[in-house]
C-alpha cells in the first residue's frame, strides 16, 4: 500500500514538473510530448547534448505549443541536484542581460526564457518576440515546480564589493583551464577573476595546492589563510591563490597595481 502511495506521489510529482501548454489560455500542444535521458539526448540536439551531460543531466520533457501562428518550444530538464541545475542556468544565461527573481532565477529576452528552480532547468523558445508571454509561462511553470528557490550556497562565498553582477558561474570541469581544479565557481571582479573550489578534505586541498605550485612555477609564498602563493602565469596573468581548510581560491588576471594579497585575503575571509 505504501509502495503504491509512493508510486502515485512520484508520478504526480513527475507530472507536475512536465511542461504544459495549457498553463496559458489560448495555447495548445502541437504534436507529441517528448522525453529524453542522458542516453538519447543527442537524438534531440546532437553535439549540444554534451553541454547538458556536463551538468549532470538526468532527463528532459518537452512539448511544442501553438497559439495561432505563434509557436513555443518548451523543455524542462531535470538535473541531478539544484546546484547542477543552477550551473546549467548560469552557463546559458547571457551575462549582459539582467535576471529576474522568478524561481531561483529567470532570464527573459524577447524570444527566449530560461528558469532555474530546485533541480529543474526550464527553457522556452519563441517563434517571435513576446517577452510578456514568456514571462507568464515562466511564472506559471515556476509555481508547479516544488522545491527550493534558494540559490546555491556558493554564491554567498564571493564578496559583493566590486563583483560584476551576474558573473558568478559554476565551472563543471577544469576551473581556470586547470585539470587539478576539478569543479568550482568563478566570478568576475573589477580587479580580476576570482575562483573557489571545494575539495573533499584539507589534505586533498593541500595536495592540489602542491600540484598548482608545480604547474604554475615561480611561485612566492604569501600569508593568506592556511597557505597561499603569488605568481605570474603566461595565460592566467598575475595571480594569488590560497587554501583555507578544504577550500582553494584566489584571483587571476590581477592588474599590476592591485594588492594581490589583500584582495585574496578578503575572498578567504568571506568563507565561513
Amino acid at each position, binding site marked *: 500500500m505504501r509502495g503504491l502511495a509512493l508510486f502515485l506521489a512520484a508520478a504526480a510529482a513527475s507530472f507536475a514538473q512536465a511542461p504544459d501548454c495549457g498553463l496559458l489560455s489560448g495555447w495548445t500542444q502541437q504534436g507529441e510530448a517528448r*522525453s529524453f535521458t*542522458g542516453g538519447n539526448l543527442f537524438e534531440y540536439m546532437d*553535439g549540444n547534448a554534451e553541454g547538458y551531460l556536463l551538468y549532470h543531466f538526468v532527463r528532459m520533457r518537452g512539448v511544442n505549443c501553438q497559439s495561432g501562428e505563434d509557436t513555443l518550444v518548451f523543455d524542462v530538464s531535470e538535473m541531478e541536484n539544484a546546484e547542477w541545475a543552477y550551473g546549467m542556468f548560469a552557463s546559458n544565461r547571457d551575462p549582459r*542581460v539582467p535576471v529576474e527573481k522568478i524561481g531561483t532565477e529567470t532570464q527573459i529576452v524577447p*524570444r527566449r526564457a530560461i528558469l532555474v528552480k530546485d533541480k529543474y532547468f526550464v527553457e522556452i523558445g519563441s517563434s517571435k518576440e513576446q517577452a510578456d508571454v514568456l514571462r507568464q509561462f515562466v511564472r506559471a511553470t515556476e509555481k508547479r515546480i516544488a522545491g527550493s528557490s534558494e540559490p546555491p550556497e556558493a554564491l554567498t562565498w564571493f564578496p559583493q564589493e566590486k563583483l560584476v553582477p551576474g558573473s558568478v558561474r559554476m*565551472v563543471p570541469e577544469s*576551473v*581556470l583551464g586547470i585539470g587539478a581544479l576539478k569543479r568550482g565557481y568563478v566570478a568576475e571582479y573589477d580587479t580580476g577573476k576570482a575562483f573557489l573550489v571545494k575539495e573533499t578534505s584539507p589534505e586533498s586541498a593541500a595536495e592540489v595546492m602542491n600540484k598548482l605550485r608545480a604547474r604554475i612555477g615561480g611561485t612566492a609564498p604569501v600569508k593568506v589563510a592556511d597557505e597561499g602563493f603569488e605568481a605570474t602565469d603566461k*595565460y592566467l596573468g598575475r595571480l594569488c591563490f590560497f587554501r583555507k581548510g578544504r577550500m582553494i581560491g584566489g584571483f*587571476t588576471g590581477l592588474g599590476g597595481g592591485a594588492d594581490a594579497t589583500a584582495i585574496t585575503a578578503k575572498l578567504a575571509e568571506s568563507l565561513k
Partner: protein
Amino acid sequence: MTSSRRSFLATGLALPAAGLAIPRPGRTPAVPSAAPAAPDKLAFRTLGKTGLKVTSLGFGCMITSDASVIVRAADAGINYFDTARGYQSGNNERMVGAALKSKRQQVHISTKTGAKDKAEALAQLDTSLKELGTDYVDIWHLHGKQTAAQLTDDLLEAQQIAKKAGKIRFAGVSLHSGHAEVIPAAIQSGKIDVILMAYNFTMGSRLDEWIVKAKAAGLGVVAMKVMAGGYRHLRDDSPSGAILKRPGAMSAALRWVLKNPDIGTTIPSMTDMDQFEDNFKCMPAKFSAEDEKTLAAHLERIGPLYCRMCSLCAGTCRRGLPVSDLLRFVTYADGYGQFALGRERFRELPGDVTAVRCGDCAHCTVQCPHGVHVAERISRAQELFG
C-alpha cells in the same frame, strides 16, 4: 523538431553589442604574447577542396569554459577551432571570439546554425559574426543533419548567399548519424565543401566507405566525437571507466582517428591544459600496437553490450521488435543505473511489442554486425521491464 528547438534557442537571445563576457580593455591581458610553436610538433593536412592547411588536431570548444586553454592552443600553433551558435546559448561563440581575436588571421573558425530556413539561418550567421567578433567564418555548418531531406535547397541557398557576401569562406554540414544518406546528398548538391562527422574507434571501418567517397568528391572531412564521447561520465571504478580513463587511453583513441589520412582534422573537446598537451603530442605520433591493445580491451568489454546505433538491424526482427530502441532501454538500466526510465520507455511501446518474448523464437533473425548479443540483451529488457 530538432532544428526548431535549436533555432529557437539560438536566436532567442537578442544580442546587445559589447558584453561582460568579452574581455574589457585592460582587463584580460591574462594572455600575453604568443609563444612560437615548435613546427616539428605540428602536423598539417589539407582540408579537401577548401585548400585550407589545417593542423590535424583542431579544438572543439563546445564545453571549454576557460578561454585561456583556447589561447594556449592557438599559441602552440593549432589553427582550427570549432563552435556553434547553439552552444551555451551563444556564450561559447563569444568566448571563442574573444580568445582568438588577436589571432584571427592565423586561425580557421567554424561555427554552425541549426536554423530551419534561409532567413533564420542568415540572421543567425549575422549574430555569430557579431559574437565571434569577426566579419567572416571559415566554415559555416548546417548543424546536425540526419537525413538527406534536412539538407533543404533553402538552407543550401543560405550558405551560397553568405559565401557570395564574403561572410563565410566554405559551406559545411555536420552529422552524428545518417551518413549513408547525408554524405551522398551533400556530394550531390555540389554546394558543400566540408563534412563534420562523428568518427571514432568504436565504429571500426563502418564509415570508411563514406569518408572515402567524401574525400574523392573533394570534400574536407572533419572528425568529432573522436574519443567515443561520454567517457567523462564513466565512473572510474566501472570496467569501461577503468580502461578509458587510464593514462594514454584517450590519446590512443585520438591516434586511431588520425591514422586515417582521409580525415582532415579532428576536434576533440578540451577543458584544460593537461588535456590539450596530451592531445598535442598525438599529432606527430603513430598509432601503436599498444594503442591497439588499449582500444581492443575497451571494445571487447563493450562489444556485446553497446549498441552503435547504426540502424542495420532495423526491420530484421521477424516479430517486429524495435531492436535498437530496446537495446537502448536496457542500457538505461544496466549502463546508467536508471531502471525506472528504461521501464518507462519500454512501457510506452505498443502492447503487441511489449508482449513479445525472445525466448519464444527458436532462432534470432537479428545479427548485429558489431557483435552485440541482441537476443540476450533484449531478453534482459523483457525480463526487467515486461
